[in-house]
């Protein structure tokens, strides 16, 4: 067999044509055998798939990151600690931002990233600090930034039911276009919304003043003003869901912008809407009085210091006896404490 194989192969030869072609090729490639280093094309071909694979990976990583981490909705939680939760399209919390020191402390104490938003909000509400604040009669507002879409509607209704289950918790919705101006002023959207409402009552109020106020304070401020609600039919805030009272004073204004509403809300339980519609303007001394009728035990309305010179407010407040002192201290911007006088006819209503 050896020989057979040998003979067989022996007959296989490279033809002259093949050799000539090869020689030609070589001469051409080397340009007549001059010294030239040719870059091996194989190396390039090797690199190309690696480079494109790396590029794909980068795109995937960044795209995925952006996809998951871009917040599509925001929930702003304000008591005094101001927090904003960024919610991604999968209903997970991907961003937690604090807008004041208390907020930072609160955010640091909780670990709510990547949770579903409902769980995150419950955690916040049940956390020690917040629970303590709420039981001290502070108000917590949950503001959902609204935008077109199923998600924000869903979040809103979830937050409303959540707020309904807790004391002193209120839920609002705000326009997502307010996000940018809110951040420009260094406050969370919830507080900014409150600020806007308050601004309707006090046009010259500034964001800086609001920044340091708790939601409770802001609302009280707003509620003290309203008077002559008959002339100024109170407009309800947007989605107000009062958490405390049974018949949720739904139309009871936002606590900031429509103080008349607050009064109205309070009296709804009693069935007397008239006084409640205490005017919303600035010079409505009766507002505080109306507020006192709320029955929710928030003596704060009676508190003086509407801030813009309504002696009546102080008067009503004086009748309650307890809190006015403190409130005065904090809110006496204009120093009109006018205790016990100046309230005129409204005073009588202050006690019921």
């Amino acid at each position, binding site marked *: 067999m050896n020989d057979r194989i040998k003979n*067989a*192969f022996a*007959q*296989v*030869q490279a033809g002259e044509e*093949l050799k000539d072609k090869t*020689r030609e090729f*070589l001469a051409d490639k080397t340009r*007549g055998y001059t010294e*030239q280093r040719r870059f091996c094309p194989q190396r390039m071909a090797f690199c190309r798939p690696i480079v494109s694979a790396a590029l794909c990976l980068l795109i995937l990583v960044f795209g995925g990151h952006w996809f998951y981490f871009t917040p599509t909705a925001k929930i702003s939680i304000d008591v005094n600690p101001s927090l904003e939760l960024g919610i991604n399209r999968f209903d997970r919390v991907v961003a937690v931002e604090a807008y004041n020191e208390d907020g930072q402390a609160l955010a640091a104490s909780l670990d709510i990233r990547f949770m579903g938003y409902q769980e995150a909000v419950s955690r916040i509400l049940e956390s020690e600090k917040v629970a303590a604040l709420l039981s001290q009669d502070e108000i917590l507002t949950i503001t959902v930034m609204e935008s077109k879409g199923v998600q924000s509607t869903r979040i809103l209704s979830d937050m409303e039911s959540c707020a309904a289950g807790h004391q002193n918790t209120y839920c609002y919705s705000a326009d997502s276009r307010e996000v940018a101006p809110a951040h420009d002023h260094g406050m969370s959207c919830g507080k900014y919304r409150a600020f806007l409402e308050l601004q309707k009552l006090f046009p010259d109020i500034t964001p800086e003043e609001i920044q340091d106020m708790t939601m409770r304070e802001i609302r009280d401020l707003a509620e003290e003003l309203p008077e002559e609600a008959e002339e100024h039919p109170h407009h309800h805030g947007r989605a107000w869901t009062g958490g405390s009272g049974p018949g949720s004073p739904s139309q009871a204004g936002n606590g900031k912008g429509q103080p008349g509403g607050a009064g109205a809300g309070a009296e709804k339980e009693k069935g007397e809407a008239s006084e409640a519609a205490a005017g919303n303007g600035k010079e409505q001394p009766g507002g505080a009085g109306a507020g006192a009728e709320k029955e929710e035990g928030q003596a704060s309305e009676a508190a003086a210091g509407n801030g813009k010179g309504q002696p009546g407010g102080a008067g009503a407040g004086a009748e309650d006896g307890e809190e006015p002192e403190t409130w005065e201290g904090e809110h006496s911007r204009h120093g009109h404490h006018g205790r016990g006088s100046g309230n005129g006819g409204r005073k009588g209503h202050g006690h019921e």
Partner: protein
Amino acid sequence: MRNEQEVNRVVEQYSDMVRRLCMVHLKNHADTEDIFQTVFLKYVLSSVSFENEEHEKAWFIRVTVNACKDLLKSFFRSHTVSLEEVMEQPALLLPDNREVLEAVLSLPVKYREVVYLHYYEDYTAPQISRILGKNVNTIYTLLTRAKQMLRERLGGEGYE
């Protein structure tokens, strides 16, 4: 880089060998041209200094085998091959040679390599293992099996 003179020499000296190796590995003639160009270009551009002719020859074998394998890897190929595909003028072959070549080509590639190198080039298994970079036991095994298979296909007596 080598000069023209050297190139002409090696082309003359090793063309046939390269051709046979191509036949053993490849499926058609067009690829042979490719391999020729690749192998000899590599020679032209290489700066290996050969200790002796044996060294040079072994270098050529290795380069050719690798080039063939690379070509085979680069796209899907069928596994069967006929003489018509690998030779320009198979009709010129003597019948016996034709039969033998066809039998060899019917073997899997790795067997064909060692068959050629052992039976035609007269390399021993250790030498083949050095050239191809394979374990010497592997080469022995391949040779044994190849011999067996060829015997089956070619039939006959009096073979080693």
